[in-house]
């Protein structure tokens, strides 16, 4: 593979990973925390309605996990396509 096509393949893999992470980002905040909040609130965890919990607690925990997940995966992709830093 030439360097050019290698880089293009790397970028494609990166975009795929970003799209996957952002869809989770969207689901836990906008979908669970706002759009479906009433439906989810029918489910209780402790004193929290589930939708309310996602809006004021859960989404934030998942955001943290997402960033480290992305950093870890993209690090491996860097290695695979040989575009990592020295």
């Amino acid at each position, binding site marked *: 593979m030439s360097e050019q096509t290698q880089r293009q393949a790397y970028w494609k893999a990166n975009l795929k990973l970003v799209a996957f992470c952002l869809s989770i980002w969207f689901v836990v905040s*906008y979908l669970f925390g706002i759009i479906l909040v009433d439906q989810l609130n029918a489910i209780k965890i402790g004193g929290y309605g589930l939708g*309310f919990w996602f809006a004021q607690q859960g989404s*934030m925990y998942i955001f943290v996990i997402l*960033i480290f997940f992305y*950093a870890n995966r993209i690090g491996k992709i860097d290695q695979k396509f040989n575009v990592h830093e020295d």
Partner: protein
Amino acid sequence: MDLKLLTFLVVGATFALYIGIAIWSKASSTKEFYVAGTGVHPIANGMATAADWMSAASFISMAGLIAFLGYDASVYLMGWTGGYVLLALLLAPYLRKFGKFTVSEFIGERYYSKAARMVAVLCLIVASITYVIGQMKGVGVAFGRFLEVDFHTGVVVGMAIVFVYAVLGGMKGITYTQIAQYCVLIFAYTVPAIFIALNLTGNPIPQLGLGSNMADGSGMALLDKLDMIVTDLGFAAYTAQKWSTLNMVLLTLSLMIGTAGLPHVIMRFFTVPRVADARTSAGWALVFIAILYTTAPAVGAMARLNLMNTIQSGPVGAADGNLVYADRPTWFKNWETTGLLQFEDKNGDGRVQYYNDKDEAFAAKAASFGWNGNEMVKVDRDIMVLANPEIAGLPNWVIALVAAGGLAAALSTAAGLLLAISTAVSHDVIKGMISPDISEKKELLASRLSMAGAILVAGYLGMNPPGFAAQVVALAFGLAASSIFPALMMGIFNKNMDDKGAIVGMLVGLFSTLIYIFWFKGWFFVPGTEMAANTPDNWFMGISPEAFGAVGAMLNFLAAYVVSKVTPPPPEHIQHLVEDIRVPMGAVKAARDH
């Protein structure tokens, strides 16, 4: 020990610490003044970013807004944390790879245009000054309370201290100082929350306490109890949604992309050693931020509960159910002196009635109790976090600690923003445009003068703020979201985006949002100049001014795309530059053609 003396001691000790660190690591060259070399570890950088980021809006104002808005305030929680995901995935690693000092330098080179750089500087300055106005409101509240003076005097004292503080050090001083500030502010925020959660629910972890049952033997969940107490007084249920879903989605989006477009946060990611560190730095910053942000909903709910129970001490409607004004607690009196808490005995019974007199269904009931309107004529949301430990009857040292934490939060962010503003003026405008051979000494002087100017403007507007601290800050995010974020993102993800597209996009985004805000908040935030009352009925499709940044960003993307299609594509060396930015390996080839 006397509370006032104790507060002075604690606040004084923490200040001595910050200033000591600032002097010890005083910036010696311009490069250090801006970005502190590039040797800051991701965890240290994350902690400093968290302190820089969590301002008076997060510390002082947000839990107060949560207390009164309930579920709807979730937009602030998700909006101000979710932006870090965008930052880590879409911007930080690429900007670090590009390796420049400032955001506007990136835009200037990527769009091979001085005009683009100028427009970016304009956007940054507008957003940053709006942000500092919000900080000044918070600083005024904190100083007003702890010096026991009027709010306006508090703002003036705050302006003076912020100025001295920001001028003393540059970024280097600030990085180490901010680590100290983070420790002070997170300790100050969580300690009272733990005490109060333990008192109310028996669970010392606030995040769990909020979802627990009350420890008063009723066996009711805290949130259910709170819903009951507030609805009994005619207020909307705490956990219910009051805003439209569209407005909530757009406001959250606006805050998220605004986070990823704010200069003082992005600048942080220029300071880490490697691209991989830029990715994890955003994660560490969010870890430290989330500690406060997941505690805030508990602080808000519990503060509301304690406030309601203090005033409505007995059953609703009982003759002796309300607090006797003459017997009001000390915190009540102290906040009255700041003018941020006001009581008016409308029915002349010497007791305090606090209820929702706008609710028609409840009005008949209130009349039958002999109530003559809500008597808490002013309860400024921004006092809640500072008043919270006093309302809960916590020991004096906790109260003193919270005052110190609030000031740390406001000062650290104000300093970071002033640095971004002064960098924009001295580095981008003066050195980059007007006189490229300016000496380092003169550049530092120019940056300090621009800091002073920014403080004066922000302080003046902070006296008559266009909203509570967190709301003003939300406006700043809307402005950053609508102007900077799309230009940065397209610069990385769209190779064919050209100079004209980016410039038109930024201008469309900035001015559509700015005009929408001024329309409802007054031109340049001057009270009385608004074109329409700031109510949901007047808003376009029910979108609040705070939420309009997301719409502005969409207009920005759209305008840039259309213009880039009808103008020539960027030159080849720019397309290569973008390809270089996208991979971590190697160095970015210089793209200067001028």
